[in-house]
């Protein structure tokens, strides 16, 4: 997913999001950039500075500066909540835990490769099981009812979910088990270094919209996440703030 945020005087004036793709990625980027500008009613010339972040940041050819993800997330967290001490960004292809100390970044934890593409795997498996992301967001914590799938690797989790379907387990339970395995893995990433603070941890990224995962993670990790309204645009907003200097 590409996310664009346009800011003026410290306020978000326009947002746009769309498919990134790989072939023809630059056209998608330019199209969305125009879209955001039109939404903000601005001309390209009126933009003082453009910065880019994320896994495909270097495809934004017209960016003046490239911001690393951690710094963008940290700025976004402080923008949404002044007292934020930790940021957890759960996106389609990475999970990032950044802990702040004053305005410096104390520590960052990136998810292990075996658990790369957590968000993407959730999207793929739920699509295969016939659910949209909004539907699985409404799943209750006990949906799995004892079904367990592999929590180490999404490919094995996908294979285990086929096995369960083949044994006749209803697909709600299988989806519940997949969500539970994602929650277990996310909790494991939170614990790799110091556990984030209980009440001052900001949650960003696309997966933050998935209530089932967020509630599961809250229950398992004991953290009360602060989830801003524009959580999905966290990286873009932080990047804009960084560009503003």
């Amino acid at each position, binding site marked *: 997913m590409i996310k664009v945020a346009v800011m003026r005087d410290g306020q978000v004036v326009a947002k746009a999001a769309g498919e990134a793709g790989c072939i023809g990625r630059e056209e998608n980027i330019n199209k969305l950039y125009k879209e955001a500008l039109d939404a903000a009613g601005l001309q390209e010339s009126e933009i003082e500075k453009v910065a880019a972040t994320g896994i495909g940041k270097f495809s934004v050819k017209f960016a003046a500066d490239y911001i690393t993800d951690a710094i963008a997330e940290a700025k976004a967290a402080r923008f949404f909540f002044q007292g934020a001490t930790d940021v957890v960004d759960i996106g389609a292809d990475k999970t990032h835990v950044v802990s702040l100390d004053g305005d410096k970044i104390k520590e960052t934890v990136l998810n292990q490769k075996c658990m790369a593409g957590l968000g993407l795997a959730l999207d793929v498996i739920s699509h295969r099981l016939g659910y949209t992301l909004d539907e699985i967001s409404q799943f209750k914590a006990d949906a799995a009812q004892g079904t367990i799938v592999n929590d180490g690797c999404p490919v094995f989790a996908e294979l*285990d979910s086929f096995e369960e379907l083949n044994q006749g387990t209803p697909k709600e339970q299988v989806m519940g088990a997949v969500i539970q395995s994602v929650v277990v893995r996310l909790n494991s990433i939170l614990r790799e270094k110091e556990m984030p603070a209980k009440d001052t941890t900001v949650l960003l990224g696309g997966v933050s919209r998935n209530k089932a995962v967020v509630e599961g993670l809250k229950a398992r990790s004991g953290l009360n996440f602060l989830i801003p309204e524009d959580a999905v645009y966290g990286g873009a907003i932080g990047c804009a703030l960084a560009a503003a200097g």
Partner: protein
Amino acid sequence: MNKFSSIFENRHDYARDWKKRSGGKVLGYYCTYFPEEVAYAAGILPVRILAKHFPDDTTDRLMYGNCYVTRDMFNQFNLGHYDYIDGLVCLESCQWWYNAFDVTMQVFPNLWSHYLFTPDYPDGNRSKDVLRSELSVIQKKFEEWTGKTVTDAELDNAIEIYNTNRRLLRRLYELRRFNNPVILGSEAMEIMLANQVMDKAEANKMLEELIPELEDRAPGEDRVRFILIGSETYDAELEKLIEGVGGNVVIDDLDNGSGYVWNEVVPLKDRLMAIGLRYLGKPHSALKDNVWRRRPEQIFRLSEDFQVDAAIIAKQIYCHPHGTDMYAVWKLLQERKIPYHTFERDTTLPYEETRLGVEALIHVAKQGMTRANGWS
């Protein structure tokens, strides 16, 4: 039979109950090269740490690249399943086991612990002296720990109990030599696993009742005979799956299977040396088979003695000792024309995926005689 599998199923309760009854200490060990007799003689119950998959979000902090088994061992301690363990002993064997031992000790520092060096070159001239000295070191530490000295009589008693146990378990293996064996591979494996987590004296009594019963049983169904090769096992799921498809594991080359019972302690005046020689002389595990190869020969001898039709090689993901031996095992099986199927195990055993390979192997082994016309 089901007495053993129930003990295996709730092994933690058994151990807690044993502690109440005997008031003794429970010592966890990882590798089956651990000379249990010395601990038993000191009144300590040696228990093999077994892995069982639970959702794991505790081990990534201190572990990377481990096989699932060593992760689960550490995870079980974190989940409090092993709260009754008083001490842990680690051996010079697989480094992933050492890793599980080391990180467990960091999280539970007040456990008694000891590192016992068992030579990687078991057949060396001085290897027996090294193991003898290591055994005397651990015996002294047991004495400090329990507060009473270990007498020769206690050592003899322990040797006798363990040799009886091995003889009884070996009879289970012998029963599986015959056509249509009276006991299935999964039943035998559960008994083996139960024996590795319980007091051997009690196990002997139960075995002495069970084996005559088995010998009067009617022969089982005609099934394809398999040898199971690969990493140590911690449950009988794979054997049950093989039985579900018409096969039966009649023999195995597992360290916690045939390797656990294949030879006995030959009593000598120097008891510790006698115990050490047994463990150095047992069929080599993957990490100890480093000079002229013995494992391939042992696999072939077992396969011929038990008339196996095919071999199943089940290796844990990231199990490098058995990974390194794979070429030598494949080379032997191909030379001796034994059909084999290799696959990797992880936390969960996907039924359909594994069944695919086992069933195909049965057809390759039984060549053409599918279930429709005659055999299967």
